[in-house]
C-alpha cells in the first residue's frame, strides 16, 4: 500500500510540473491546446493526490504502524476520530493536506472559470502548478508520508492536549484558509502576466477570497478557544509566534478585501492590491513555514529541520517573482482615478488598509526579530505580549473608529454636515455608554473604558446604518418593516454582510476588553473544607479525587461553588497524567454564567502530599462574547458571500456581445 501512495505522489508531482511547464509555455506562446492540457493535468493531479490521501487515511484507520507516519502520530488507544485527524498532526501529513487542498480548490476555481482561465488568464494554471510543484517536491523527495518500517507494537500516540474537538477542526480550517489565499494570488498574477486591466479576475475570485479569509479567521478563533480551555492559563491569546503566524495573513487579507472593493468600484489602488495579494500569499506560506519547520523553538532546530530551508527559499522566490512582475506592470496598472478628498470613503478604506498592514508588519517584526537576532548576533531574545498589545491598541483603536465612521462617509467627498448629523447618534450612544460605565465603576480601568466606548460607538453606527437603510427601502414601496429589511440586505449582501462582520469584531473587542481589563484573580492554598472568595463567588475545597481513564490518570480537586449562600453546584479542576505519552496536562474548570456574562475559571496548580491544593481562581467577564463573535463573523460572511441571482444576471449582461455565443460564466 505505501507504494501506491508513493506512486500517486510521484504521479501528482509529474502532473503539476507538467501543468506549470506546459501551461507556462502555452500561455506565453498562445497555444490553446497546451493551456487546456495543462489544466487537465492539474485536475488529474488532484485525483492522484486524493489517491495518496486515501492510502494514508486507510493506513490510519487500520492502525498500520508499518507506516512511520502512522506510528508517530497514532496509537491503539487513540479514539477513531482523533486517529483520522492525526493525518494532519505531523509535518508530512500537513504537507499532503496542503497539496490536496491546493490541487482541489485550484481545480474547482479553474473549472468554474474555464473560459476565463483558458482565454484571458492562461497563466493561472501554471502559477497554481508551480506552487503545487514545490509541495510535491517536498512530499516526494524530502518529507514523504509513506516511509515504512518494521511495524512496532504500538504507535506513539497523539499529544493529549491536541485531543480536543477544537484542535480537531483547527488545522484543516486553517489550511483551507492558507491554501485558499493561493487562488486570488494566482488569478491576480495571471492577470498581470497577461496584461489584463479589467476586473474579471476580481469578480471571479471574490467569493474564494472571502471564503478563505473567513475560514482563516474562524480557525484562529478555534485555536484561541482551545488555548482558553485546554492550555488554560486564564487567557485566550498569547501572541505566540504560532498564533501570530495565522494572524498576519488574516490581517493582510482583511486589508485586501477592503481595497479590492475600491478597485472594483473606483478603479483605484490597483498596484496596491497586487502588492497586498502577493503579501497575503507570502505570509500564508510563511505561516505554514513557522508552524512546521521548528524555527520557533530555536534557530538551531530550524537548520536541522528537513523542510525549513526549502520553505524559506520558496518564499523568497515567490516574493521576488511577484515583486518583479508587479514592478514591470506598474505603468499598465497606474490608475486613471485619483483620490479626491482625504475625507471620503475611499480615503477611509485607504486608512483602514494602512493601519491593518502596519499592524501586520509590527507582528511580523515581533516574530522575525528574535529569529534574526539569534541567527545574526547569536543573542537569543524574546518579544513578549506587551509589545504586541501596545501595537494592537495603537493600530486597533483607530481601526475600530474607522469601522464606525467609514460607512457613514460618502464616496469621493464627505458631505461634512451630513457626516456630522450621521455621527450624532453613535457618538451620543458612546457618550452615554461611557458615562454609564463610569457610574458602574469601570472607570478604574481607563483603557477598558475607552475600548467599551469605541465599541458602543461602532455598534451605534452599524445599527443606524441598518435602520436608515430599512427606512429608505420601506419608502421605496415595501409594505412591512421585516420585508423592507430583508429586501435591503438581499440587495446589498456585501455591504450588510460586511456590517455584520464589523459587529462581530466589535463583540470580539468587548469580550477581549472584558477579560483583559476587568479580570479578577485570586490565589489560595486550601486544605479540604477551606474556602476562597473571588468576584462574588465562594469556592469550598471538598477534597481530591483520582480516577483512571483508558489512557490517563486523572487527579481532580473537587470544589463546591456558592454565590453568597446560594449553592451553584460542583466543579473540578486538576491534572491528567497520560501513560503512553508520559505527559501531564492542565485540566481547568470553567463555569460559564450566561446571565452575568462571565466565566468562573479555576486552575488547580499544585497538589501537595498533605492533601492541600494550590488554586488560582479567575473571574473573566464577557469572555464568551469572543466565541459568539466567531459565530456572528461566520454569519456575516455567509450573507456577504451568498450567491445573488440579480448580480449574476448583471454580470452576464455585462459581458454579452463581448464573447462568442455559448459563454455562460464570467
Amino acid at each position, binding site marked *: 500500500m505505501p507504494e501506491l501512495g508513493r506512486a500517486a505522489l510521484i504521479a501528482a508531482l509529474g502532473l503539476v510540473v507538467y501543468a506549470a511547464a506546459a501551461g507556462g509555455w502555452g500561455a506565453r506562446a498562445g497555444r490553446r491546446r497546451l493551456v487546456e492540457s495543462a489544466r487537465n493535468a492539474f485536475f488529474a493531479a488532484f485525483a492522484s493526490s486524493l489517491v495518496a490521501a486515501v492510502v494514508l487515511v486507510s493506513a490510519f484507520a487500520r492502525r498500520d504502524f508499518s507506516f512511520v507516519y502512522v506510528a508517530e502520530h497514532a496509537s491503539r488507544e487513540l479514539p477513531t476520530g482523533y486517529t483520522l485527524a492525526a493525518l494532519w498532526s505531523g509535518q508530512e501529513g500537513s504537507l499532503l493536506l496542503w497539496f490536496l487542498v491546493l490541487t482541489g480548490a485550484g481545480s474547482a476555481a479553474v473549472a468554474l472559470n474555464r473560459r476565463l482561465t483558458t482565454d484571458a488568464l492562461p497563466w493561472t494554471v501554471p502559477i497554481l502548478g508551480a506552487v503545487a510543484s514545490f509541495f510535491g517536491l517536498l512530499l516526494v523527495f524530502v518529507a514523504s508520508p509513506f516511509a515504512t518500517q518494521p511495524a512496532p507494537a504500538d504507535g506513539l500516540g497523539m499529544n493529549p492536549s491536541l485531543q480536543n474537538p477544537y484542535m480537531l477542526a483547527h488545522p484543516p480550517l486553517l489550511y483551507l484558509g492558507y491554501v485558499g489565499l493561493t487562488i486570488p494570488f494566482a488569478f491576480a498574477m495571471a492577470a498581470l502576466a497577461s496584461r489584463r486591466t479589467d476586473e474579471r479576475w476580481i469578480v471571479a475570485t471574490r467569493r474564494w477570497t472571502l471564503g478563505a479569509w473567513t475560514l482563516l479567521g474562524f480557525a484562529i478563533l478555534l485555536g484561541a478557544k482551545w488555548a482558553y480551555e485546554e492550555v488554560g492559563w486564564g487567557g485566550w491569546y498569547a501572541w505566540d509566534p504560532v498564533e501570530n503566524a495565522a494572524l498576519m495573513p488574516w490581517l493582510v487579507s482583511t486589508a485586501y478585501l477592503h481595497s479590492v472593493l475600491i478597485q472594483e468600484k473606483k478603479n483605484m489602488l490597483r498596484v496596491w492590491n497586487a502588492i497586498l495579494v502577493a503579501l497575503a500569499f507570502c505570509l500564508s506560506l510563511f505561516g505554514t513555514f513557522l508552524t512546521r519547520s521548528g524555527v520557533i523553538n530555536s534557530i538551531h532546530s530550524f537548520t536541522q529541520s528537513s523542510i525549513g530551508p526549502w520553505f524559506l527559499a520558496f518564499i523568497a522566490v515567490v516574493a521576488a517573482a511577484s515583486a518583479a512582475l508587479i514592478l514591470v506592470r506598474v505603468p499598465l496598472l497606474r490608475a486613471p482615478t485619483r483620490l479626491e478628498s482625504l475625507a471620503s470613503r475611499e480615503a477611509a478604506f*485607504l486608512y483602514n488598509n494602512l493601519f491593518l498592514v502596519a499592524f501586520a508588519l509590527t507582528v511580523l517584526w515581533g516574530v522575525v526579530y528574535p529569529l534574526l537576532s539569534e541567527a545574526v548576533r547569536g543573542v537569543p531574545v524574546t518579544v513578549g505580549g*506587551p509589545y504586541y498589545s501596545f501595537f494592537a491598541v495603537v493600530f486597533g483603536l483607530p481601526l475600530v473608529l474607522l469601522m464606525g465612521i467609514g460607512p457613514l462617509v460618502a464616496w469621493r467627498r464627505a458631505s461634512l454636515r451630513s457626516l456630522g448629523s450621521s455621527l450624532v447618534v453613535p457618538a451620543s450612544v458612546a457618550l452615554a455608554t461611557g458615562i454609564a460605565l463610569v457610574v458602574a465603576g469601570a472607570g478604574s480601568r481607563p483603557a477598558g473604558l475607552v475600548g467599551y466606548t469605541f465599541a458602543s460607538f461602532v455598534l451605534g453606527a452599524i445599527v443606524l446604518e441598518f435602520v436608515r437603510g430599512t427606512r429608505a427601502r420601506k419608502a421605496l414601496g415595501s409594505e412591512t418593516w421585516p420585508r423592507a429589511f430583508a429586501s435591503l440586505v438581499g440587495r446589498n449582501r456585501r455591504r450588510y454582510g460586511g456590517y455584520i462582520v464589523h459587529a462581530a469584531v466589535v463583540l470580539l473587542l468587548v469580550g477581549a476588553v472584558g477579560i483583559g481589563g476587568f479580570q479578577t484573580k485570586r490565589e489560595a492554598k486550601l486544605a479540604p473544607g477551606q474556602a476562597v472568595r473571588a468576584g462574588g463567588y465562594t469556592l469550598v475545597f471538598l477534597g481530591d479525587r483520582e480516577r483512571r481513564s483508558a489512557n490517563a490518570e486523572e487527579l481532580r480537586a473537587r470544589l463546591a461553588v456558592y454565590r453568597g449562600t446560594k449553592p451553584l453546584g460542583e466543579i473540578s479542576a486538576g491534572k491528567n497524567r497520560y501513560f503512553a505519552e508520559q505527559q*501531564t496536562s*492542565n485540566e481547568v474548570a470553567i463555569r460559564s454564567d450566561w446571565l452575568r456574562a462571565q466565566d468562573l475559571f479555576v486552575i488547580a496548580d*499544585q497538589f501537595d502530599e498533605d492533601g492541600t491544593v494550590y488554586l488560582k481562581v479567575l473571574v473573566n467577564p464577557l469572555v464568551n462574547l469572543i466565541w459568539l463573535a466567531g459565530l456572528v463573523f461566520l454569519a456575516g460572511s455567509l450573507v456577504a458571500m451568498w450567491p445573488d441571482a440579480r448580480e449574476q444576471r448583471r454580470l452576464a449582461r455585462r459581458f454579452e456581445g463581448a464573447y462568442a455565443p455559448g459563454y455562460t460564466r464570467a
Partner: protein
Amino acid sequence: MARRRNPVRLIVALSVAAVLAIFLVYTSFAGGATPSLRPSQLAGHDGDVSLAGKVVGPVRGDAHGAGLRFTLRDVRGTATVPVVYKGSLPDLFRVGRDISVRGRLAGGVFVAETDSMVTKCPSKYQPAAGDTS
C-alpha cells in the same frame, strides 16, 4: 481637470513615517525585546534578566510555599546556576527540559520572578514520548 499630485502617495509616505516613529519611541522606552542569557553569561548582570537553560535535578521544595529549588545549566555547556522559583509550574516542567525564567541574581542564587517560568515546548505536533533532550 488640473493635474494634482496623487494624495495617496503622500498619505502612504506619512503613514510609514508615523509608524516608524511610534515604533522607535516604543522600543526606546519599553525595550520591546528582552535578551535571554545563559547561566554562563549571568555573572556581572545585576538587574532583571531573562535566563534560559536546561533543568538539572535534584528538584526540591514547593513552588507555592518557600520556593522550588533546582539548577539551571547552559543548554550547550556546563555552567550552572542554582535557581529558586515561586509560582505556577508549567505542565511540561521536568528535569531535562529547556526553560526560561525572569529574575535576578542575588547572592549566587538566581531568584526568579513569580510565575515567570516558560517552557520551550517541543513542537506541539511532535510526540513527547521518546524525548531525548
